[in-house]
């Protein structure tokens, strides 16, 4: 089961530059929340605040609250937060110095699992959930670079799922993939939302419309409008949202 994530008045900056202004957004359990908006509006920064990855960048600061199932993640140990709130990046980033198996096992090992049989079992389960098992089961000990980009992205998903998170954040997970791999990922998201709460940043409005239950529109560091995906796309309340979703700018 996933857990709900809630951002309250989240602001973020790099040095003096304000990137996010008081964003409040509820991301409901076992639903897909899409975040859309023009480039540079702070979408990535926002979801990086959710798993406390933002604060690791030089000059990055944030304020506001992020609640995971009602508990503030900024009161927790950051490594524990990131363990519960997984993240998939816009470019597949498997560990290039590790085998496919070791990639999936990396998170488990970090958190102290040493038993080989259990590692193998969890890795297989994660690879199955990421819809990759059948493609790699015979070559688990090859380097991850032996896979295609789309497979690498699913490997990253498997790696993230292996440590049993409750929320999965995805930053344009299909933006560097071909249409077919994109389709596979989208089907996967559909599948995953039964078990996880999913937040996905996307540039692709059709993609948001296809996969998301809820959508939020960001502009210049502010959350302009949020609502069910259907509502946001068909009856936007704000003119800027309307302009964006109808392709008049951005």
């Amino acid at each position: 089961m996933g857990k709900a994530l809630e951002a309250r008045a989240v602001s973020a900056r790099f040095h003096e530059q304000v990137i996010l202004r008081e964003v409040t957004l509820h991301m409901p359990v076992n639903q897909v929340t899409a975040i859309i908006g023009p480039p540079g509006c702070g979408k990535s920064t926002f979801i990086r605040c959710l798993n406390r990855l933002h604060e690791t960048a030089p000059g990055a600061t944030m304020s506001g609250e992020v609640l995971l199932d009602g508990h503030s993640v900024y009161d927790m140990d950051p490594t524990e937060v990131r363990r519960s709130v997984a993240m998939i990046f816009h470019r597949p980033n498997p560990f290039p110095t590790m085998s496919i198996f070791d990639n999936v096992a990396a998170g488990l090992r970090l958190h102290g699992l040493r038993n080989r049989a259990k590692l193998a079992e969890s890795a297989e389960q994660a690879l199955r959930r990421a819809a990759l098992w059948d493609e790699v089961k015979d070559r688990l000990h090859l380097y991850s670079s032996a896979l295609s980009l789309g497979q690498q992205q699913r490997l990253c998903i498997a790696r993230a799922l292996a440590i049993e998170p409750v929320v999965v954040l995805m930053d344009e997970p299909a933006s560097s993939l071909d249409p077919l791999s994109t389709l596979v990922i989208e089907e996967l998201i559909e599948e995953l939302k039964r078990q996880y709460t999913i937040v996905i940043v996307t540039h692709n409005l059709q993609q948001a419309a296809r996969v998301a239950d809820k959508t939020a529109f960001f502009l210049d560091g502010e959350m302009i409008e949020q609502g069910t995906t259907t509502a946001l796309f068909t009856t936007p309340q704000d003119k800027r949202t309307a302009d964006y979703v109808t392709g008049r700018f951005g």
Partner: protein
Amino acid sequence: MKRVSAQGWNGLFAGVLAVCVLVVIGAGILSVTTLIVESVPSIRQFGLSFLWTPVWDPVHRQYGALPLLYGSFLTAAIALLLAGVIGVTTAVSLTQIGVPWIRSVISLLLEILAVIPSVVYGVWALLVVAPIFGRWSGYAGGSSGEFAVSGFGVLAAGVVLGVMVMPTVVAVTREAIASAPKDIAEAAMALGATRQETVALAVMPFVRKGILGSLYLGLARAFGEAIAVSLVIGNQPRIGGSLFARADSLASMLAHTLTGSAPPLQTAALYEIGLLLFLMTTVFYGLGRSYIAREAISPRFQPW
């Protein structure tokens, strides 16, 4: 008419520049040739055995490079051990932990460390470091004879060299870390890795070459350092077998012996030492550079 003359100017300009290139390269070739020519008498006299003859004895006109090679390698080894351990960890700190302003202050200090001339290091080595070692080995039992008094010897020279080489190691390693892929490190952090785990898992695998390169560059620099070493190594070309014993290195020998009044064979032997020094630094320097992309280091700051 006009066009021809413009082309003529261009050609002339390019020609002048090409001559400058030839002068630069020619000066290099002339230098190496000079070293070879000047060492001919010594090469004739001693042949290859020059390399492993364990005595350097001007009184009996017996010259061998082994004691100097010994001193060079031993001091360089101490220097690299120090600079390697401290330098690499410092480079990791400067990229991975700490408050930004402290990082930039330390970076600035290390850059200054790199521009301090070796003769100033010499003052510090002679008047600060050596006395400390002298006292220290005195407390330690004073069994090491002359070292107990002056502090001169392999260890003092190695430590000073280590300090001199460290900025190189830090600068190169830091660049290597900075050019390691960020997204891989973020992948590790997103899995809940601590700083230490992130460094071990997702940073270090990408900087091994850079570290190796920085150590080779440091080695080349340590070998070539004459002034500061000659002030504290003790200037006695012999194989003492102890870290506390006096010794001499290739470059240091050149610094304190070659004064123009030496007999011809000794001068030739010294030039052969110079040639040897050139070959060795070139090999290590070349090895170092082969691990480090030219563009990886800003032209502003190249401490070697």
